[in-house]
């Protein structure tokens, strides 16, 4: 197998169809009245908004915009509104600033300079809003995590990845860019640098230290059980880069699983209790 971006060129019409069917069946089987999603103005949430709207109708999809003062961006709000309008979504804006401020004040050890801990607090607060609306209006939360970031563990545990379904989690970022264009997401939004928006000027590629075009091919090679040396040779990059990606992928499995219990009983939750999911 020759690692090249063309390997990630899937049939995007087919992918759209499958994802829409998945969303529709899940919502119906859950007896839910629709979907709540966080609408950030970025490519992933825009893609999810488009897919959800096509699957169950925009009137059944609520996009929550969750700005907060430290990271406020009028451009992001405008982009989010643009997507909502294009795909006929319902929207609501909840300013999280006052809640975050209370949280900061109520934590005795709160350190405003520890931007990671503070940023994770924001991601988890967004989750609280999403689930409040889901709970209140009998909807499910639709997550927008992609495969690149999920494999790298580049997300907040119980934060941005907390959702009932994650319809684009099996697509790498470079694939989502193409899917987004296929779905008619405005190009300028597709080209915007991805960011979890946990602090000002944060970008995913800067933090990951690698371009998505390279990262996705490394991850694709690992997915296909290729050895790191083969991947490095094929991509003409240092093996240490590929090893670092592999190590980060493996080290973050704990973020992708239910909490681990010690084995004591006959059948154990999250371990060998293997049950079907009733609402899919």
């Amino acid at each position, binding site marked *: 197998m020759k690692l090249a971006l063309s390997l990630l060129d899937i049939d995007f019409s087919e992918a759209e*169809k*499958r994802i829409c*069917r*998945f969303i529709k*069946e*899940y919502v119906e089987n859950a007896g839910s009245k629709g979907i709540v999603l966080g609408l950030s103005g970025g490519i992933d949430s825009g893609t999810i908004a488009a897919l959800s709207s096509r699957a169950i109708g925009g009137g059944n999809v609520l996009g929550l915009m969750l700005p907060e003062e430290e990271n406020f961006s009028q451009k992001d709000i405008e982009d989010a509104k643009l997507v909502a309008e294009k795909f006929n979504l319902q929207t609501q804006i909840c300013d999280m600033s006052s809640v975050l401020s209370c949280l900061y004040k109520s934590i005795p050890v709160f350190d405003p300079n520890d931007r990671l801990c503070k940023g994770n607090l924001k991601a988890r607060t967004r989750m609280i809003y999403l689930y409040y609306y889901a709970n209140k209006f009998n909807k499910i939360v639709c997550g927008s995590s992609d495969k690149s970031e999920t494999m790298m563990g580049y997300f907040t545990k119980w934060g941005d990845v907390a959702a009932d379904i994650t319809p684009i989690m099996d697509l790498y970022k470079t694939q989502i860019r193409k899917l987004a264009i296929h779905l008619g997401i405005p190009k300028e939004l597709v080209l915007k640098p991805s960011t979890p928006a946990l602090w000002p000027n944060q970008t995913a590629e800067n933090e990951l230290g690698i371009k998505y075009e390279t990262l996705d091919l490394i991850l694709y090679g690992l997915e296909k059980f290729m050895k790191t040396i083969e991947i490095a040779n094929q991509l003409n990059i240092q093996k240490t880069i590929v090893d670092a990606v592999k190590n980060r992928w493996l080290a973050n499995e704990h973020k992708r699983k239910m909490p681990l219990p010690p084995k004591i009983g006959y*059948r154990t939750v999250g371990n060998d*209790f*293997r*049950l*079907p*999911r*009733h609402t*899919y």
Partner: protein
Amino acid sequence: MKDKINLALAQISSKRENKEANLQKIEDLTFKAKEQGADIIIFPELSLSGYVVRDQVYELAETIPGPTVEKLEKLAKKTGMHVICGMPELSEKTQATCFNTAVLVGPQGLVGKYRKMYLPTHSVFEEKRYFRPGYQTAAFQTELGNIGLCICYDIFFPEVLRLTRLKGAQLIVCISASPAVRRSYFETLTCARAIENTAFLAYVNLAGVQDGLQFWGGSRLVSPSGDVLAKAKYDEEDFVICEVDYGDLRTAETFIPTLKDLRPELFDKLKESSELL
């Protein structure tokens, strides 16, 4: 024996852990098939219980004969139809030894059953965790011709269908629960197995979504020459009536005579080599 028979390919989406609802669907579609002139109706792998049932399989599995098969027998008797259906089977001798089984009933009662020989336990599949493999291929002489049975992943192993054909099967029925990413493999293999055995091959797959697995449907009847004679929709539930004309077997067998040209001594070599893999 009839020269020509009509098949109903019942590509359903089954409700997991709801045998009652699935049986109702089986019953309704069997009556519908009868009305449309079918002689036999075929339902997908584990369509009685749903495919992704995990530990619940121990509650869902039944002996054969057993309560569900009795209901299927009554249905077959009432309609004069043959019915093939996939279900988790419980061994009569134990309390938790299960098989992934295809059962064939006719107007006279239970004709026979086939226990899946190759249980996928890789990727998203965990069948060996729950099922014991079968040890026998199955071909049954009926008034509708000699019907062989196999299940899904078996089709990747030419020896299963070859043995079924050598037992006399003219129509090989493969019931399946295949998720979408494997569609191209099955589309190739259904034709290949029909051609290499010069037999009709009816493939009936599940539709719908179970635990994120999307079953691709695409059920079909393939002629002994590899032509797709009838095809159901991809992904959605569908119901297709199609005809098997056994007269076509002679044409296929004379054109590319794979059975005449079989070399039995190679099978000994195959056994030796596979033991040393």
